[in-house]
């Protein structure tokens, strides 16, 4: 594992780039997950998203999650890349890849990392809806502060 196991990407990226460094003849399994921008959320039509990060702490917390994964699971390597900026429907918002000797550890670790990243890393998501409104996801008061843009 390196300092750069967790990365923020300001532009669209190809998951093959972070994955390419993970080839290892001792690895028997590679589990990966891609979060894609969906065209709907909680009954509303979504046309695009904005991700905003607090970069210093996001990088620190992302790499901390990866350290935890190495302690909890018998894995060989892992990378996580999270987008920031304005994303269209279908774009990759987050990618996690994990190699391990055995597939169980690869699966469990991949899922641990994406669950923790979503819960803990300071990244915020603003949805832009087909009806012209927008709102910050999980901001409980956003409904009261929806605005045209």
């Amino acid at each position, binding site marked *: 594992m390196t300092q750069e196991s967790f990365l923020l990407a300001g532009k669209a990226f190809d998951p093959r780039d972070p994955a390419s460094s993970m080839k290892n003849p001792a690895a028997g399994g590679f589990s990966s997950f891609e*979060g894609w921008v969906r065209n709907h959320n909680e009954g509303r039509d979504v046309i695009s998203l904005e*991700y*905003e*990060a*607090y970069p*210093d*702490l996001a990088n*620190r*917390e992302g790499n901390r999650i990866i350290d935890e994964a190495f302690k909890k699971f018998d894995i060989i390597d892992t990378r996580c890349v*999270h987008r920031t900026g304005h994303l269209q429907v279908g774009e990759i*918002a*987050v990618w996690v890849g994990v190699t391990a000797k055995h597939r169980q550890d690869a699966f469990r670790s991949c899922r641990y990392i*994406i669950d923790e*990243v*979503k*819960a*803990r*890393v*300071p*990244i*915020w*998501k*603003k949805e832009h809806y087909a009806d012209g409104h927008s709102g*910050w*996801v*999980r*901001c*409980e*008061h*956003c409904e*009261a*502060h929806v605005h045209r843009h």
Partner: protein
Amino acid sequence: MKTIRLQYFAILREKRGQSEESRQTTATCPAELYGELKAAFHFPLTTEQLRVAVNGEFSAMDTPLNEGDEVVYIPPVAGG
């Protein structure tokens, strides 16, 4: 009176209308400082809905603040 550096993200950045500032304050901890900011800028979240980072690390809302500290309030996150 001390000087605190603030960065704002997401809904707090939008409400504040800028992404950072230096602020003179008598507040002794992040919770107290937030009360001041909430009143000034009509922030829609309470300290129970926020976490806070002081100098780039998650910290308690009652951490003593020192001259020059950097404070960031963290609204509920929604990555991925």
